[in-house]
């Protein structure tokens, strides 16, 4: 088979891939995503995990170490079957936060910190470089197998392959101006490649097992007879490798790209959870047989990494060999394309864009399309990455076994895992912790794994391996801290991840996160509880126009205008510019983050809005759950206490109302009684008189008298009621003037004088000579009432009334003391209440309002009236108005 034919077929294959990709992009652009967006495509796109390393290297690995090769597939299998634990969460976070890469995830989680983004990007670049070199190496080697002239310049072939891959990737991966959209074309192409490599490997496997070995039974005999039959599994490597491949599966930039970034539906994960392990299962099923047969059949010294190609060629199966070659080619190209896209995105978002942004004079508001900057930086990054890969390939001499290079890359990317897992499960993880862990892990990996990979003496002098740098033996690259005898890989994985995790935890515990970090932490850890991310925008004086200008440059004019118009419409505004609400900013930031990464998007918006503030409300959401529950229950408690207080107040108010109502009822009832009683007599006697019944004239006279008296009683009652009502409502007008106390007493006594004159009144006129400034009529009314009460109620045989004037400190007082039996203790307390008459109310001849009226009057006059117990009889004390009471 000619080398030229091989090249032609390769180019044809690439054209076919291009056609697929182009067709898929067209379909997607037309909105007919359909089955492009299916779980099958998703699963197949995951197969970029299986690189040329897998395709060729696994067989070589198996030929050297037996079953150990399978650990590289078992780790991812465990991650996939455990999708419910980790991947589901990761995919959900990726979607809600619009994560563009693993560096973006770490950066976004730890407060949109670009420092972390840069760190992870650097790690990714350094770790991806040997991996790309690995692909170059395998493609180059496979080309070389077909080369007619042995000893062709390998480096030259590798260079051509690198350039070709770079062009291919740039064409595929950055063809889209819309950097935000899913790479439907690329995904389609790698899905096709996934099928090709699976079919190729299965075909070779079937050929080997069923044709060369003669069936599964004889195959097992061949294995048992081969040099690898007794390769026992080394437990420490076995365990470490399963763990390492699992970690790498999550952290490798290209895996993150297809698994999280390109994921459009979480349900695809459910399908991939069994379908992808099945793919891996099939990919590895024939690896050991191929290795065993290859070792058995091919001449000693053949490179086992190329058994997949050399076995068919040995038996002149050119077509099968060609298929195998295409399988290997597919593995290499798909890996390089996706890895380059993923890493280029990181480089562009976390290194180029921030630098470009800071160098722009006018900040983010200057006009001009940013997208070309993004695209250009990505294209350059892809080219640079492949250049780096090529250089690594040349430097490392292309000598290392494929598997060894792959594992170095794995170990490098696995350094991100502590920060990633910690970040999505542990709220306490902080930026400082993540930075510390990554730095420590990165450094140890470089020292103990990456640099030694260049060959025993190329970068690190042999003396350093033996004695450590500067003679510090505990820093020997492959015997850190003096622990010798460990497998170099196990050694590197163990120390780097252990110290990485330790630093991450320790510094997280010791540092305090910023509010934005805490917000993001809560949003990540609780992604299933509130799928909306915590808002970071409050206030800010962003002008919608500036924002639109900036957005146009990132996501394109038409899309940005549509976005703004849609928001304006949602806000119920006419025109195209919405109000700049925090919610709008949040959405816009996430939209932009899909293009340029969270940190850059955040920084750009910050330039326009003039800073981000986190409101107390937002912090409330950050407050951990326990706190929230506590606050919730505190609020509840406060509310219920408040309710309790309100209820009590209501209860009290109600009681007052009821009491008032009872009082009113009682009062009305009393008035009714007081009115009806005289009316009863009046009506009865007037009916008697009207009927003209025979009766003595004196009887008639007497009945008329009763009617007359009761009428007067009614009138008096009404007068009293009106008087009291006026007094109680404060409507009374006082005619104040200069008056003499003795004059008022004279008036009162004169008014109450009865013809029979049984009551003896004793006075002390000397002391009564007091001049007052008050309403004389009202005061006289009080005195009259008191004197007439004595007349009515004093039960002594010779009723006497003493009127005594004295003073009670500053106040003048007038006591009215009779010689009767007084008022009983229980009556004493209610004596001033309305209708609270003494026992024999008939005798009172009044309505029982007298004393109530007196009390009201004295209140109005600024004095007081009280009952004084413990005197010889009933004793009432009138305290005269203070201010104007002056001795004459």
């Amino acid at each position, binding site marked *: 088979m000619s080398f030229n034919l091989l090249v032609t077929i390769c180019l044809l294959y690439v054209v076919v891939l291009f056609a697929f990709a182009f067709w898929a992009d067209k379909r997607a652009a037309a909105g007919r995503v359909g089955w492009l967006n299916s779980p099958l495509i998703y699963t197949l796109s995951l197969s970029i995990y299986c690189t040329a390393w897998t395709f060729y290297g696994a067989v070589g690995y198996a030929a050297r170490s037996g*079953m150990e090769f399978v650990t590289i597939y078992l780790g991812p299998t465990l991650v*996939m079957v455990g999708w419910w634990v980790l991947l589901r969460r990761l995919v959900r976070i990726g979607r809600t936060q619009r994560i563009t890469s693993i560096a973006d995830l770490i950066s976004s989680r730890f407060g949109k910190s670009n420092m972390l983004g840069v760190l992870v990007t650097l790690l990714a670049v350094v770790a991806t470089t040997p991996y790309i070199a690995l692909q170059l190496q395998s493609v180059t080697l496979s080309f070389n197998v077909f080369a007619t002239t042995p000893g062709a310049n390998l480096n030259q072939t590798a260079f051509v392959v690198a350039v070709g891959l770079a062009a291919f990737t740039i064409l595929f991966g950055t063809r889209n101006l819309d950097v935000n959209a899913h790479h439907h074309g690329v995904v389609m192409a790698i899905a096709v490649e996934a099928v090709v490599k699976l079919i190729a490997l299965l075909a070779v496997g079937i050929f080997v097992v069923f044709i060369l070995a003669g069936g599964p039974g004889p195959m097992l005999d061949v294995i*048992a007879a081969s040099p690898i039959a007794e390769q026992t*599994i080394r437990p420490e490597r*076995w365990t470490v490798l399963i763990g390492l491949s699992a970690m790498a599966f999550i952290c490798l930039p290209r895996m993150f790209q297809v698994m999280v970034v390109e994921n459009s539906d979480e349900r695809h994960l459910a399908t991939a*959870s069994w379908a992808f392990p099945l793919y891996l*299962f099939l990919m590895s099923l024939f690896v050991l047989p191929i290795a065993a047969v290859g070792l058995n059949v091919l001449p000693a010294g053949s490179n086992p990494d190329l058994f997949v190609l050399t076995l068919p060629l040995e038996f002149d199966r050119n077509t099968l060999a060609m298929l195998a070659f295409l399988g290997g080619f597919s593995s290499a190209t798909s890996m390089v394309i996706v890895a380059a896209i993923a890493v280029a995105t990181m480089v562009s978002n976390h290194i180029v864009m921030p630098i470009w942004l800071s160098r722009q004079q006018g900040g983010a508001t200057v006009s001009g399309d940013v997208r070309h900057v993004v695209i250009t930086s990505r294209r350059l990054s892809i080219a640079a990455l492949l250049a780096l890969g090529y250089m690594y390939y040349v430097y490392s001499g292309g000598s290392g076994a494929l598997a060894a290079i792959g594992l170095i890359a794995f170990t490098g990317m696995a350094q991100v895992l502590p920060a990633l897992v910690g970040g999505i*499960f542990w*709220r306490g993880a902080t930026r400082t912790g993540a930075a510390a862990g990554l730095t420590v892990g990165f450094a140890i990996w470089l020292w103990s794994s990456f640099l030694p990979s260049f060959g025993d003496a190329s970068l690190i002098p042999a003396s350093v391996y033996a004695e450590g740098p500067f003679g510090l033996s505990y820093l020997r690259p492959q015997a850190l801290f003096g622990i010798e005898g460990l497998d170099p890989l196990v050694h590197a994985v163990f120390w780097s991840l252990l110290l990485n995790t330790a630093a991450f935890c320790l510094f997280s515990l010791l540092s305090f996160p910023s509010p934005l970090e805490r917000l993001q932490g809560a949003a990540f850890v609780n992604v299933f509880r509130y*799928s909306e991310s915590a808002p970071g925008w409050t206030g800010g004086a962003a002008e919608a126009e500036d924002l639109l200008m900036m957005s146009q440059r990132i996501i394109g004019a038409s899309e940005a205008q549509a976005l703004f118009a849609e928001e304006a419409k949602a806000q119920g505004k006419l025109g195209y510019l919405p109000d700049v609400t925090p919610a709008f900013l949040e959405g816009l930031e996430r939209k932009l983050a899909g293009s340029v990464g969270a940190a850059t998007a955040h920084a750009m918006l910050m330039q326009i809005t003039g800073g981000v503030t986190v409101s107390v409300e937002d912090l409330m959401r950050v407050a951990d759950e326990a706190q929230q529950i506590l606050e919730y229950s505190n609020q509840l408690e406060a509310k219920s206490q408040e309710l309790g207080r309100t209820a009590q107040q209501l209860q009290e108010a109600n009681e007052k109302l009821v009491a008032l109502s009872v009082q009113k009822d009682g009062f009305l009832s009393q008035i009714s009684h007081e009115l009806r009683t005289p009316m009863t007599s009046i009506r009865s006697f007037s009916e008697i008189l009207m009927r003209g019944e025979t009766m003595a004239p004196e009887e008639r006279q007497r009945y008329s008298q009763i009617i007359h008296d009761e009428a007067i009683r009614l009138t008096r009652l009404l007068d009293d009621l009106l008087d009291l009502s006026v007094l109680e409502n404060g409507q009374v007008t006082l005619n104040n003037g200069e008056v003499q106390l003795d004059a008022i007493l004279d008036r009162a006594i004169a008014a109450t004088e009865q013809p029979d004159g049984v009551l003896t009144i004793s006075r002390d006129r000397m002391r009564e000579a007091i001049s007052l400034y008050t309403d004389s009529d009202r005061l006289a009314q009080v005195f009259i009432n008191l004197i007439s009460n004595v007349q009515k109620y004093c039960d002594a045989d010779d009723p006497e009334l003493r009127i005594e004037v004295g003073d009670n400190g500053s106040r003048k007082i007038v006591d009215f003391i009779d010689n009767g039996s007084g008022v009983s203790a229980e009556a004493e307390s209610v004596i001033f209440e309305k209708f609270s008459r003494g026992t024999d109310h008939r005798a009172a001849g009044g309505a029982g309002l007298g004393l109530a009226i007196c009390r009201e009057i004295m209140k109005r006059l600024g004095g007081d009236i009280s009952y004084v117990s413990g005197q010889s009889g009933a004793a009432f004390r009138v305290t005269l108005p203070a201010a104007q009471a002056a001795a004459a």
Partner: protein
Amino acid sequence: MAGATRKQPMFLERESYRRRRLGDAARLVPFTGLVLLLLSGLWTTTAGAMIYIFVVWAILIVVIGVLSVRLMPLTEDSDEAEPSVPPER
């Protein structure tokens, strides 16, 4: 568990209880798988180890396949009732 403190009822209905346990089962699969795969070292011959590993692998695929089909309706819905991480502090 603290998840019961808010508006969630103390006991779930039978159906959602089943679905929760389905999720628990899905969480157990990778760890069970890991333990089984770590036992591969017990085989002394490569052929024996190979057969054992592929059998375990196949079982894992079938089990997670069955579980995932039944878990699929649960994804995409944001209202996962049970917090997968207990509240901190």
